């Protein structure tokens, strides 16, 4: 096999002095003032990385130029328009969505740099904040000044993004929050004590108005929720406990730390404990705030050191205790209480059941009260399901049960989720509603089978 010589591109064998450094500008719609500006930038050490004509410009022509700063670390974009303002852009990556970035940086940037316009855009899931200066005359001097202005603006955006506080005593980043005079004094004092404001969230509803603080020399955050009435200070701890274990862990908190509350959150499977101290506006002083933050720290330490409690037994059948005290006649059938109701007006009877298990979700603890309305080895037809499960109820609902190891029939039950702390009178009402509705649906679904359930 014969090897052919590899052709060498002509450009590679040209002497260096023959290369035109400004070849990338040829054919571009640049005015002479733009070329002067680009020459000045080149002299100052800026390196062009892209020059393109922007075909989308409606009036006149435009040339887009990307530059690398002399130290090679920053990208700057210029757009020279022949019939419109030219622009100088610098950008940084920010963690927010586009809308949130506008909300977070817009007013602050405008206050500090009135000549700089904030433009945010999102690409491939990333958001960029652009500091832009618009120039009616893109002369070398104006472009260089715009570069300096955008550099300062980007430094400010970086500080804001990374949570570096404004100069001490400057609360301009908190403008969007409805702070009282006491609360303002607290934020100034906290800043002097080394607390950095990492984030300010100012949504319309009260639950979303808070300041995230980074205490000095710490690896945790303190959340300060503000409203005109009070200031709520919070710290959170993620735990690997079950929800019940976490709840048990927090139980001593109110006694050990008066004025402190603890809540357990099930955040889609992740359990988190939040400790909170609330200060009314009259209590909101720097000293009390710092004391409260210190107390939250002790509370977190207590939670961390507390031995993992055994899985807390769910509250044991509180509705059963209410039932026992109610003088209603029932039978204990293991996992349930069974009650028979004779309805004199319909001359029918119906059973109602109270499940002993307690189901919990955050603050909610319920026990099911139900009555069967369909119980047959035959699966309910699609038409029956369609009709029955369209029924509207002002309390409770229906559940279909397929045959299982413990019961061989298809069933439909009407159930109400009763809060475990319900009083006797409400329990009686719920039982009446459950058995009456169950019986009525039974009669409707199986009119020819008599009164079985």
């Amino acid at each position, binding site marked *: 096999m014969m090897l052919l010589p590899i052709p060498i591109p002509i450009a590679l064998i040209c002497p260096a002095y023959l290369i035109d450094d400004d070849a990338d500008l040829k054919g571009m719609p640049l005015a002479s003032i733009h070329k002067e500006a680009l020459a000045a930038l080149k002299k100052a050490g800026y390196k062009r990385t892209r020059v393109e004509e922007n075909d989308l410009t409606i009036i006149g022509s435009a040339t887009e130029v990307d530059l690398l700063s002399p130290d090679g670390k920053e990208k700057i974009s210029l757009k020279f328009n022949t019939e419109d303002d030219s622009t100088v852009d610098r950008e940084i990556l920010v963690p927010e969505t586009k809308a949130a970035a506008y909300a977070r940086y817009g007013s602050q940037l405008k206050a500090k740099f009135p000549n700089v316009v904030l433009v945010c855009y999102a690409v491939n899931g990333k958001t960029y904040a652009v500091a832009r200066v618009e120039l009616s005359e893109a002369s070398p001097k104006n472009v260089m000044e715009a570069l300096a202005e955008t550099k300062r603006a980007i430094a400010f955006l970086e500080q804001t993004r990374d949570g570096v506080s404004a100069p001490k005593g400057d609360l301009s980043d908190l403008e969007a929050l409805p702070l009282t005079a006491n609360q303002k004094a607290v934020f100034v004092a906290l800043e002097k004590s080394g607390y950095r404001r990492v984030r300010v969230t100012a949504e319309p509803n009260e639950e979303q108005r808070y300041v995230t603080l980074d205490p000095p020399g710490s690896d945790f955050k303190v959340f300060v929720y503000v409203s005109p009435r009070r200031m709520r200070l919070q710290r959170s701890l993620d735990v690997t406990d079950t929800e019940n274990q976490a709840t048990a862990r927090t139980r001593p908190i109110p006694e050990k730390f008066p004025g402190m509350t603890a809540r357990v959150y099930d955040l889609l499977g992740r359990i988190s404990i939040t400790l909170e101290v609330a200060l009314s506006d009259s209590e909101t002083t720097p000293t009390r705030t710092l004391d409260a933050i210190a107390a939250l720290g002790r509370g977190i330490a207590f939670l961390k050191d507390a031995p993992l409690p055994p899985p807390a037994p769910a509250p044991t059948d509180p509705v059963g205790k209410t039932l026992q005290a109610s003088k209603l006649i029932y039978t204990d059938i293991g996992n349930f209480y069974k009650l028979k109701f004779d309805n004199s007006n319909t001359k029918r009877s119906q059973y109602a059941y109270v499940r002993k298990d307690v189901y919990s979700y955050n603050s909610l603890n319920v026990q099911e009260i139900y009555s069967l309305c369909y119980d047959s080895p035959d699966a309910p037809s699609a038409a029956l399901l369609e009709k029955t*499960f369209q029924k509207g109820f002002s309390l409770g*609902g229906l559940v279909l049960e397929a045959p299982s190891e413990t019961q061989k029939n298809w069933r439909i039950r009407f159930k109400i989720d009763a809060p475990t702390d319900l009083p006797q009178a409400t329990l009686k009402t719920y039982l009446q509603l459950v058995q009456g509705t169950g019986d009525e649906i039974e009669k409707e679904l199986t009119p020819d089978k008599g009164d079985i359930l």
Partner: protein
Amino acid sequence: MILTLLCAALMIGSPQTPRPDDDAAKARLKSALDATGLKYEASASGLSFTLMFDHEGGKRKQKIYLAVKPGTPSSLKTHMIYTTVWLGKDAPPDEALMRKILGRTKKLGSFYLFKDAKGIWVIRFRVHFDATNLKETSASDDNLVINLKDMIYFVSQVGDETDKDLNGDNDIR
């Protein structure tokens, strides 16, 4: 007789005449919802307050409806909290889907079918908030307010999980 009245009140199928205290119940509910701190708005029809929740970092959303008009079983006052988990154009869910979903037991609440005036079939998940003892003006640390908030969270969580299970990436709100 009393029992018949109780159960007639529990099942809502027939038109109900407006009650004079519905406005008071709505005001109490609004105060409680305000106290939860959750962001909500009135639906276009005015029949519900609606709340939109982000799931999976905002990739998915779930819209929750809180019925304004109270149910009045017996001497109680209740408000339904619900969300849609499946949507069929003009046909009800097939038998297999009905058995799958209607047989799902959750800690609280239940699934049900609904056909709107345009013939669209949906499967929804609902719980009832017993608002009988709701104060005229609620505070954020009232037990009922905390319960209301958790019920809304629960419906949102079950709603999105079920939606994802039934519809995959086609996010039903």
